[in-house]
């Protein structure tokens, strides 16, 4: 039973990450800096939403009963959401959005690639489909990191600001939550801390091409999202996201 509990939590963690970041990116839809990029970021939002749905559907199967993707997305409270804090931060300007996406895609790329080999065939299947999408997200976002870092003085400064804003949320990505450790012990996943070195290399390479520096003082990292302790932003995201389902429960749409 504990086996399944941890697996459910982990699957929800993956789903929440994708859903919340999708929700943030979709705020750009109709408001992008140039039409082609409006389409691109919306596309990433759609891909992430698709990943979220696959994970929620799998979690619903594991939970059984009347669980469903919509029940899981729309009827859990803030402290039940297990997304990383990074996903819920405001979209900010284009530099913040780009940097967050780059950081996240680099992480998701390694994570999904590893997960595609999981002994849990369902997770493996979802991950191997998703890794193709994320490969594109990573390429797109790293190109933009380079373009902005090595663009104008203003765009460079904005990227530096974005790094200052977001860096403290990167530590959490590689800090396993209890449910992660649990299913790692069961051999279902390999463990997220093993990805950190390769991740930092990816970041470093792109930053270097973008003439951007890695923070030297890695400082204190913010954590808690994976276990339901969030920043003030998530509550407002959920108030909107869940609005209709909360007002009209048990309806078909």
């Amino acid at each position, binding site marked *: 039973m504990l086996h399944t509990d941890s697996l459910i939590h982990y699957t929800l963690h993956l789903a929440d990450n994708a859903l919340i970041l999708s929700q943030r990116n979709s705020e750009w*839809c*109709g408001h992008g800096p140039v039409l082609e990029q*409006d389409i691109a970021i919306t596309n990433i939002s759609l891909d992430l939403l698709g990943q979220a749905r696959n994970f929620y559907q799998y979690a619903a199967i594991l939970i059984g009963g009347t669980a469903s993707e919509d029940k899981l997305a729309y009827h859990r409270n803030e402290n039940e959401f297990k997304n990383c804090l990074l996903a819920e931060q405001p979209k900010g300007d*284009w530099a913040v959005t780009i940097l967050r996406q780059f950081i996240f895609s680099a992480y998701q790329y390694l994570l999904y690639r590893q997960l595609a080999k999981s002994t849990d065939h369902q997770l493996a299947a979802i991950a191997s489909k998703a890794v193709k999408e994320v490969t594109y997200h990573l390429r797109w976002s790293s190109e933009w990191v380079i373009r902005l870092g090595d*663009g104008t003085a203003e*765009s460079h400064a904005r990227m530096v600001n974005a790094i200052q804003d977001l860096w403290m949320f990167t530590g959490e990505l590689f800090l396993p939550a209890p449910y992660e450790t649990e299913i790692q012990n069961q051999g279902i996943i390999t463990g997220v801390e093993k990805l950190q070195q390769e991740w930092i290399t990816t970041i470093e390479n792109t930053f270097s091409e973008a003439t951007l520096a890695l923070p030297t003082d890695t400082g204190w990292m913010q954590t808690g999202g994976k276990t339901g302790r969030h920043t003030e932003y998530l509550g407002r995201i959920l108030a909107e996201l869940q609005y209709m389902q909360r007002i009209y429960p048990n309806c078909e749409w």
Partner: protein
Amino acid sequence: MQIHDLEKVFLDKIEEEIKIEPRDWMPDAYRKNLVRQISQHAHSEIVGMLPEGNWISRAPSLKRKAILIAKVQDEAGHGLYLYSAAETLGTSREETINDLHSGKAKYSSIFNYPTTSWADMGAIGWLVDGAAIINQVMLCRTSYGPYARAMVRICREESFHQRQGFEILLVLSRGTAEQKAMCQDAINRWWWPSLMMFGPRDGESTHSDQSMKWKIKRMSNDELRQKFIDMIAEQVKVLGMTLPDPDLKWNESRQHYDFGEIDWNEFWNVVKGNGPCNKQRIEARKNAWDEGAWVREAAAAYANKKKLKTNNGLEAA
């Protein structure tokens, strides 16, 4: 060739249903008329993203959210096709967009109405996209090649959107009492504005005659409007809902539906900029554009650097 010879070649092509292409000679007025119409159409797609975008964050199921995001994204794509079509006539995208922001260029007034309930996503798909399609199907045969070809692609996606919109309403119409009321309320609010989408009555339309001669348009505003009404008046029965027009009834002799008087006062006011959301829409677009300026500049600067490096590389080699 003399101008009047060129004009004859042009008119012969129109007559023989041969598409006019970007490099062909065309009368200035034809070009101007097309640029106006295509860019207005492009702007409608772009501004049209906003009222629907308003519900992305609140879509009531993940599936509906995905469908809605994809739909709004399609509209951005349509905007791209159409800006490209306008560019073939020698107008840059930047010029076109500036005309929108300055208020010189118009967009469909329908997008100046607010989306205040989820059912509006259905009503927009069914009624607004439905009205657009009636217009666009005709434009697939418009005389200017790039515009006609853009329209073919757009029409395909739009009819998909219309079906999705209808389906949103169908689910609501079979739902709880509250959902049914939401559905009817949305139809009530969107019906008349969607009839206005076909523009003023034939007698009062400034550009219509010339557009018909040049086969830019092939049916009059009133003809298209009637076609739309006849279609919707049947489809609404499937929903078990009503259209908010007491005068709407089948006319056996005309073989068309009769309908009540449109509030042309409202129509002209919304066109003039007094709609509920005109300011809000244009400001949202301007903000996006202005706040994106540094991004576009950075991209341009980086592209330049790249080019220089490549050139230097070539010289050094």
